[in-house]
């Protein structure tokens, strides 16, 4: 027995057991890609510009009220473009005071001053713009994760890709349309007063004050299923948003049998604002608006304390449940658009797995039988090593939490090819050494020693490539790179430790080796 045989057995045993720890139980540790198990894959683009312009709008509102508090008359304080506020004072008087107020908006830079006309602009700083864009994506990601968690999907993948994209993978989701509506909805809940002084007809003709706008309520007739849009003239000022919400629950709608409604409850701040607003506006109609659509516009009969309200709108129980989820999870800071969408039915995923597995098993059998016939006992050793190689590959993928996709299977295929090549290289080399007349024992030694140099070179080159592909590539290319890298690392290990170990166990224990079965 060569020295340190037991140490090598121990190394292999530790690796095999460690791999088992990662790999058990396989159904849960190996993530199958959506192309293999069915589900929905979405790439959303976050409209970060929209978030920037919303923030600019908000700052303009704040500036306007700050000027009013100081008693400075302004003709116009408005957003211009995504990141600029235009301020036009009523006249040159109050200029210095206005500049002092503007200076409090420290993250805006003042430019285009024209004191004579009483006009200046505030532009958002580049750093703030960059930060807002980043916030929009991060908050969006968080919100969507929250919604998906409440929706109840096993093993969802929700990650940021690139600068402003969100990748969502929901394996096994049966109703993609519903999932999509849930994820993609901005869910901006707003409370605004109706402008009852402007008649709807006049507003539709385009004659409405700057402070009002026309929004619609969608109504589906129960009999005809026809969609009707009812116009409302709504004041632009938002009194309260869903940001102050603490609870949202589904209830049966008492006024419309078979319909459902969502009951909401505000936190302390929201409840206080809601109380004030309702107190000041008794007799007026308060519109409940979600993503720009009016859901209802009840008349305020008295002050409503406690901060409770209901959203009605002919909801089915599922609609109401999903609405409650998005309201609880909060609004997306900016709207999202769907850039990529793939839905794979579960039957197709199952088919591609079955066919793929049959084919891969078929090619594995071809390889195994060939090695056995051509190299006899050594071939058997190679087959066992190949089995270990695949086992380690899958364990490594489980350890990295990698997902097995169709391109990933390509990586596995190349790994198997190179692992077979490794054994062929070693065995051909041993045969060559035998041919020049070496004893079996020294032929095995020399064969391994010489072949290993080549094997290290081939493996390292391809591993370098895999690492580069991983760093530069996107989804599918990455999947290929991960399984290839893991597979080649496993192949190096089996070639260096395991195959040699088996040879040693089989041959080196004997006092005299007559011949090598190769």
């Amino acid at each position, binding site marked *: 027995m060569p020295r340190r045989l037991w140490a090598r057995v121990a190394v292999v045993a530790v690796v095999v057991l460690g791999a088992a720890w990662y790999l058990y139980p396989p159904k849960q540790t190996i993530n199958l890609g959506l192309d293999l198990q069915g589900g929905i894959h979405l*790439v959303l*683009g976050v409209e970060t510009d929209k978030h920037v312009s919303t923030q600019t709008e908000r700052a303009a509102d704040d500036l306007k009220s700050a000027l009013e508090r100081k008693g400075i008359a302004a003709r116009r304080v408005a957003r211009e473009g995504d990141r600029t506020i235009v301020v036009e004072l009523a006249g040159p008087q109050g200029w210095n005071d206005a500049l002092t107020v503007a200076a409090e908006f420290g993250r805006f830079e003042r430019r285009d001053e024209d004191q004579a006309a009483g006009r200046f602009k505030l532009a958002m700083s580049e750093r703030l713009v960059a930060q807002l864009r980043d916030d929009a994506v991060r908050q969006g990601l968080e919100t969507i994760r929250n919604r998906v968690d409440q929706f109840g999907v096993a093993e969802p993948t929700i990650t940021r890709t690139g600068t402003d994209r969100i990748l969502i993978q929901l394996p096994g989701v049966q109703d*993609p*349309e519903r999932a*999509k509506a849930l994820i993609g909805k901005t869910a901006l809940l707003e409370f605004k007063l109706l402008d009852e002084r402007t008649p709807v007809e006049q507003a539709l003709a385009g004659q409405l004050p700057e402070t009002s706008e026309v929004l619609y309520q969608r109504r589906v007739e129960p009999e005809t299923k026809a969609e009707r849009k009812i116009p409302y003239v709504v004041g632009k000022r938002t009194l309260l948003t869903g940001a102050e919400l603490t609870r949202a629950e589904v209830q049966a709608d008492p006024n419309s049998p078979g319909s459902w409604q969502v009951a909401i409850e505000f936190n302390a701040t929201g409840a206080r604002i809601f109380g004030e607003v309702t107190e000041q506006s008794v007799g007026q109609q308060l519109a409940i608006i979600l993503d720009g659509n009016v859901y209802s516009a009840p008349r305020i009969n008295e002050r409503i304390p406690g901060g409770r309200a209901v959203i009605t709108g002919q909801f089915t129980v599922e609609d109401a449940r999903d609405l409650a989820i998005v309201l609880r999870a909060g609004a997306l800071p900016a709207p999202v658009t*769907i*850039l*990529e*969408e*793939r*839905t*794979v*039915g579960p*039957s*197709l995923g199952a*088919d*591609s797995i079955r*066919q*793929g597995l*049959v*084919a891969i098993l*078929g*090619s594995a059998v*071809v*390889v195994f039988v060939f090695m056995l016939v*051509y190299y006899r006992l050594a071939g058997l050793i190679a087959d066992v090593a190949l089995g270990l190689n695949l086992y380690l590959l899958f364990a490594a993928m489980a350890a990295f939490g990698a997902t097995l996709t*169709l*391109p990933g299977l*390509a990586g596995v*295929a*190349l790994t198997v*090819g*190179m692992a*077979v*090549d490794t054994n*062929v*290289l070693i065995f*051909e080399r041993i*045969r*060559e050494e035998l041919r020049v007349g070496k004893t079996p024992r020294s032929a095995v030694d020399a064969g391994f020693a*010489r072949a290993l140099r*080549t094997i290290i*070179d*081939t493996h390292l*080159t*391809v591993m*370098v*490539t*895999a*690492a*580069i*592909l991983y*760093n*530069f*590539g*996107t989804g*599918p*290319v990455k999947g*290929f790179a991960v399984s*290839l890298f893991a597979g080649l690392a496993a192949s190096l290990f089996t070639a260096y430790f395991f195959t040699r170990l088996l040879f040693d166990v089989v041959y080196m224990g004997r006092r005299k080796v007559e011949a090598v079965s190769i």
Partner: protein
Amino acid sequence: MIELFRNPRWDFIGKRKWAYLASLVFVLLSLGSLAARGGLRYDIDFTGGTLIQVRFERAPSVARIRAGLTPIGLGDSIIQRFGDEREYIIRLALKELGSEEIARRVQDALAADPSFGALEIRRAEFVGPQVGRDLQLQALYAVLAGVLGILLYIALRFDLKGGVAAIVAVFHDVLVCLGALSLANREFSLPVLAAFLTVIGYSVNDTIVAYDRLRENRGKFVPKGKTFAEQMNDAVNQTLSRTVLTALTTFFSTAVLLVFGGKTLEDFAFVLVIGVITGTYSTIYVAAAIVVDWTRSVEGRLRRGKKAVAKA
């Protein structure tokens, strides 16, 4: 003991002039096919668009599917059989609607024709134009960076000539596979991209085995009376049985994938089958041959330089 070859001594390198000609013909054929067809046919992964895969209970005809889609304004879609006769793919140009919405309309429209029987939408994909373009670019960058990595590694471990020659061999293999893909009128999709990456890996692996043997031979003893071409030829012959064995096992296993892997793996396996052949060939007749001719030209220049010095 089964042996394919016993001490083979074929003159591979000596016939490289013919091989250059053959490589040139194949590369030109590939480029010609690509030019004639106006480039590759990309899958929606790369172009953007909408794709719907439908399985019918009873085998339909393309004309009937088209007739079924015409009322919803999708009569001009590309309709292809996919795998067996009951499964079809409907491909649309970019539309405003999401894939789910389109899938539902397609389902409703096709359900109106009773001759199809029950139908199942098995896959609905929508890829926005920006995503497709990004993927194209990123895949290209990734491959170029990978190739650069190979070049650097071989240049450091062996020499620059070997590195450049290996890269030329990789480009040769990729071009020939692209040509085969184009001639067979198959699409360039994500799995096919993965197949190309696999071919690159295989090709480099094969090339390095030959280089390694040459280096080992030259390191052991200074070969007397053998030209560089002969030494390279020896290395190729010594590794020949390994080359053929590996190529055969890989070829057969990819062939099994091609035949039994189903429609999803078909294009992928097709590229691999071609890639194994050209990857093996290019080791000898592109990579090794270029190293030989490059070395000869360098040695020739040195000799002429020495003669000139001697005359003077």
